[in-house]
């Protein structure tokens, strides 16, 4: 666990320093852990675990949009699990359950493989259509069609800078919509 936490902290430091590849690797590394924790939380609340991917994506979005609140001198895992716990409680509450989520639910989780039965998450996608047109088009192109920023800019006749701005705003609006739900 200690090695894992140190690795995460190191990756996050690199990410904050501008290493986008380290950031991607970090998000990939934490996702299986978050997935197991989300499943466990749902199972304990008597909810179908196939919704876990929605919660995982919600957590990832929050991690991304709130990463400036992480103190680079502090370990990454407690920060991550605090966000995860918050989002899990939120998700369970939205499903009409009041559940106490213990921090141990996260700290002792070992990464599991993505299970076959996982239904592709639909919450994020379903909110795409409600976004302002520019944000929606940019997110559709980058997140759904897997286009690069460059190609997206060409396709939508926008500057790359404008695509980047729309991308960030789109992610922030998505998170806001998920929260309001």
């Amino acid at each position, binding site marked *: 666990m200690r090695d894992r936490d140190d690795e995460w902290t190191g990756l996050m430091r690199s990410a904050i320093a501008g290493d986008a590849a380290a950031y*991607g690797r970090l998000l*990939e590394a934490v996702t299986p852990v978050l997935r197991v924790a989300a499943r466990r939380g749902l199972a304990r609340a008597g909810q179908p675990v196939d919704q876990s991917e929605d919660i995982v994506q919600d957590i990832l979005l929050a991690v991304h*949009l*709130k990463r*400036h609140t992480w103190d680079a001198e502090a370990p990454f895992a407690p920060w991550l699990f*605090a966000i995860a716990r918050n989002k899990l409680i939120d998700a369970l509450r939205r499903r009409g359950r009041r559940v106490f989520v213990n921090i141990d639910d996260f700290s002792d989780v070992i990464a599991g493989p993505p299970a076959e039965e996982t239904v592709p998450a639909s919450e994020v996608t379903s909110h*795409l259509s409600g976004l302002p047109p520019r944000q929606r088009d940019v997110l559709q192109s980058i997140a759904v069609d897997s286009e690069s920023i460059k190609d997206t800019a060409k396709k939508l006749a926008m500057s790359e800078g404008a695509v980047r701005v729309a*991308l960030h705003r789109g992610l922030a609006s998505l998170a806001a919509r998920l929260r309001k739900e």
Partner: protein
Amino acid sequence: METERLIRTLALDAGHRQRPVGAVLAVALLLAMPVSVALFMSILGMRPDVRTAMHNPFFDLKFVVTMALAITAIVVSLHLARPEASLRGWGWLLLIPVALIALGIGAEMMMPHQRPWLTRLIGNNARACVSAIPLFSLPLLAGALWALRRGAPARPALAGAIAGLLSAGLGATLYASHCTDDSPLFVATWYPLATAMVVAVGAIAGRKLLRY
């Protein structure tokens, strides 16, 4: 959307730098302060004898207490903006202004007085105090909440309450320069009442606005 794609998308947005919450809070308070000062100057203004009042240590103590409240509440606010933070180990900071006013009360008790303590406590401006401090605090509270939305507090209502505390501290600093009641007994009675109103508004607003 598959999680893999979401991760790839987030990594593409990694270059976007968010300003630290502290910097945004500083800007927000600097923008809201002139609004509160304008309200203060147009409605109340400083007391006419402010120059002589400055030689009265109990007049000066009011500013020490209200500024101490504002500063400690700002520090605690910024701490609580982090998702893993709690009041533990930090809450005692908020006792600093309480201790300061308690010292003031003690000091005043030891001085010879013509006016009985109850007269000093009730003062002449109680109503102005409890209505003006919340009024001057509201623009600052709005600014503080707007800034703290960038944070990720585990307990949004608590974070909002502390935002109320910091704006009440600043609002009370303005009001203190108008008020002619300098007795620490007055300050310890009416200022907290006014502050509690702002804290309540902050908590209710924070519950909604500071969720992330």
